[in-house]
C-alpha cells in the first residue's frame, strides 16, 4: 500500500508495471509484473506437483499429501459435476483450478500483485473454457449441440422468445464467469487497502492515533475472510467450468 502525497491510494496495487518493453508490430507484448507473477504461479504449481510426488511414498510426506489432496478434491468435483466422462477434461480443470487458487493465494501476501484481479486474465480463462465447450460440443454432437438452446416441453410459440433468451444467456456465461472471479478479488483487495489506509491516516492524525489499532483489527478479520474467498472463488470457477463442460458432453438437457 503506497501513500502518495499523504493520501493512501488503494487502486495503486493493481497497476501494471513494465519490466521489459517489447513490441511485435503494433502489439505490445512487454514483460510486466503480471507476466512475472503468472510465471511464478506456474513455477510454484509445477514445483509442488513434480517435487511433491517425486518420492511416491506409501506414507506421504506433507507436500505429497497436499498434492494428493488437491488431486482427489478436483477429481471428486469433476466426477460429481460432469460425470465419469468429464474426467477427460480433468487435466484442464485441474490446471485451471490450481492456477487460479495459487494466483488468489499469492495475491494475499502484502506487496504482491494479484493476477486474478485483472479482468483480462479472468476473461481469457473464461473464453478458453467457452471455446473448449463449443468446440468439443460441436465435434462430439455436431449440429445436435445447438439443441442446448431449445428447452424441452415448451410450446412452439414460446420458443420464439425463449431461444434468443437462451442464446443470450449462453453468451453471457464467459462474462459472468470472469466478472465474478475478478470482482471478488478486486473488491477484497480494495477493502483491505482502504482499511490499511485508515491505519496510516489515523496514525498521522495526532491524538486520533489511539484509534489506529481498530482498523488494524478489522484487517485481521478481513484477511481470514479473504483467504476463504480466495479458495471459494477458485472452487466456484472450477465448478462452473465443469457445469459448462457437462453441457458440451450432454447437451440434451
Amino acid at each position, binding site marked *: 500500500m503506497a501513500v502518495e502525497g499523504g493520501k493512501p491510494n488503494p487502486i495503486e496495487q493493481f497497476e501494471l508495471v513494465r519490466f521489459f518493453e517489447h513490441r511485435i508490430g503494433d502489439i505490445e507484448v512487454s514483460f510486466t509484473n503480471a507476466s512475472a507473477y503468472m510465471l511464478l504461479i506456474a513455477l510454484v504449481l509445477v514445483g509442488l506437483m513434480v517435487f511433491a510426488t517425486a518420492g511416491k511414498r*506409501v*506414507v*506421504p510426506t506433507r507436500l505429497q499429501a497436499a498434492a*494428493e489432496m488437491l488431486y482427489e478434491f478436483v477429481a471428486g468435483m469433476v466426477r460429481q459435476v460432469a460425470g465419469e466422462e468429464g474426467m477427460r477434461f480433468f487435466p484442464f480443470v485441474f490446471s485451471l483450478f490450481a492456477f487460479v487458487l495459487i494466483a488468489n493465494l499469492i495475491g494475499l501476501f502484502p506487496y504482491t500483485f494479484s493476477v486474478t484481479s485483472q479482468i483480462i486474465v479472468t476473461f481469457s480463462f473464461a473464453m478458453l473454457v467457452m471455446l473448449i465447450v463449443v468446440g468439443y460440443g460441436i465435434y462430439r454432437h455436431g449440429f445436435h449441440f445447438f439443441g442446448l438452446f431449445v428447452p424441452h416441453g415448451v410450446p412452439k410459440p414460446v420458443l420464439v*422468445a425463449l431461444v*434468443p*433468451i*437462451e442464446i*443470450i*444467456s449462453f*453468451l*453471457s*456465461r464467459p*462474462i*459472468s*464467469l470472469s*466478472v*465474478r472471479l475478478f*470482482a*471478488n478479488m478486486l*473488491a477484497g483487495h480494495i477493502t483491505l487497502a482502504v482499511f490499511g489506509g485508515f491505519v496510516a491516516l489515523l496514525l498521522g492524525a495526532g491524538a486520533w492515533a489511539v484509534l489506529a489499532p481498530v482498523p488494524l483489527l478489522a484487517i485481521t478479520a478481513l484477511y*481470514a*475472510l479473504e483467504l*476463504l*474467498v480466495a479458495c*471459494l*472463488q477458485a472452487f*466456484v470457477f472450477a465448478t462452473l467450468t465443469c457445469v459448462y463442460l457437462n453441457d458440451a458432453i450432454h447437451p440434451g438437457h
Partner: protein
Amino acid sequence: MVRAVLDGLPHCGAIRVKPLSLEDLTSPAGIIFAATAPGSLGMSDDPEKKDAELQARLAKLDEALKARDAREAERAAKVSPQGSAFAKAMSAGLAVFSEFVAAVIVGAGLGWLVDYWTGAKPWGLVVFLGLGAAAGFWNVYRLAMRQARDDQAKGEG
C-alpha cells in the same frame, strides 16, 4: 494412497483378508494390516471358488470404504467454518450480480451490432436489451433453483 494399497489387492489372491471392521479403515496402517494379515488358512484350491471369494472380499472392502467416505463427508460438512456465512453471502450476491449484468451487457452488445449491421437504429438495441434483461432474470432464476436443489440435497443427506 489407501486406494493404491487396495488396487494392489487383486494380485495377492492367496492372502486371506480378515473380516474388516470399520475402525481398521480409519488409518492407512489399519488397511495394510487388514489386507495382509493371514486369517483362516482353509483356502479352497478351486480357482473359480477362489475368484468368487476374492470378489466377495473386494465387495466387502468396497462397502467399508464407501461407509468411510460417507463418514468423512459428514465430518467435513460439520467442520466447515461457521464464520464463513458472510463470505458465502457475499459470493452469492456477486454471483447474482454477475449473472444478471452479464446477460444485459450481452443483450446490449448484440443490439448495438444488429443496429450497426442493419441500420435499424434504435430498434435492435431496444429489442435485444429487453431480451438481455429477460435472459438476466432467467440466469438468476436458474442460479436460485440450483442453490435450492443443492440445499435440499444437503438437507436430505
